[in-house]
């Protein structure tokens, strides 16, 4: 997914995709407003309604939505 971000194939609001670094921590997406969503659909930091392009991109990559 990070490759998609780097290639401009992710929604513009996506800053980067982070890996879980601590055992038990989920992979996560960082948005440009500072919020971060885990791949199980829980918010790691912040939280807001997702846009339709964000929802589509996440679900296409197998992520759960909040």
């Amino acid at each position, binding site marked *: 997914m990070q490759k998609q971000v780097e290639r401009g194939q992710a929604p513009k609001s996506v800053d980067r995709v982070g890996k879980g670094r*601590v*055992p038990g921590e989920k992979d996560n997406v960082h948005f440009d407003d500072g919020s971060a969503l885990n791949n199980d659909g829980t918010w*790691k930091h912040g939280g807001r309604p997702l846009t339709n392009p964000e929802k589509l991109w996440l679900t296409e990559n197998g992520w759960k939505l909040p």
Partner: protein
Amino acid sequence: MISANVPSKREQVIETWMLSIIKDGGVDRFDDLHVDRIDDKWKHRNIWFEAGLEAWHLAIHLRDKHRLDYTVVLAFSLEAGESTRGVDFTTRAQLESCFDWSPPSLYLFRRNQEPRMRTAVAGAENISVKDVEPKMFGLPVEARHCYYIEFRQIDTGAYSRTVFVEG
């Protein structure tokens, strides 16, 4: 390590993060603070190492100031793949060349719940913890523990590799 001319904004950002995640459950959500969120000047990869250590020292200072019973942990995220790699660096330069795209970040952990203690948790397997000698960084890192963790994320199959510095 904390210079007299450190902008107070950095301390304010770290202090706000630290106090809020203790209050709102962020500690349990692994709500970390990346250095590029502390200071725009820390966005550049070539200063991530020094920025991480500077942020770590500031966070320890603030933790002690507020008498918080938590461990401050700095995490350097390394490139990983579909198999184990182990500790493949012996110098700071080699470590920096292993950095992935994610800037270093700060975590807070309750005592005895630090990453090195998490060797049997749901969602992760093949967890390997190895001590790393702080002197290899070439800087006076006053760390309680410095170590490397590698594990496989069960849901994605990808490995994760990180160097942690505890204070």
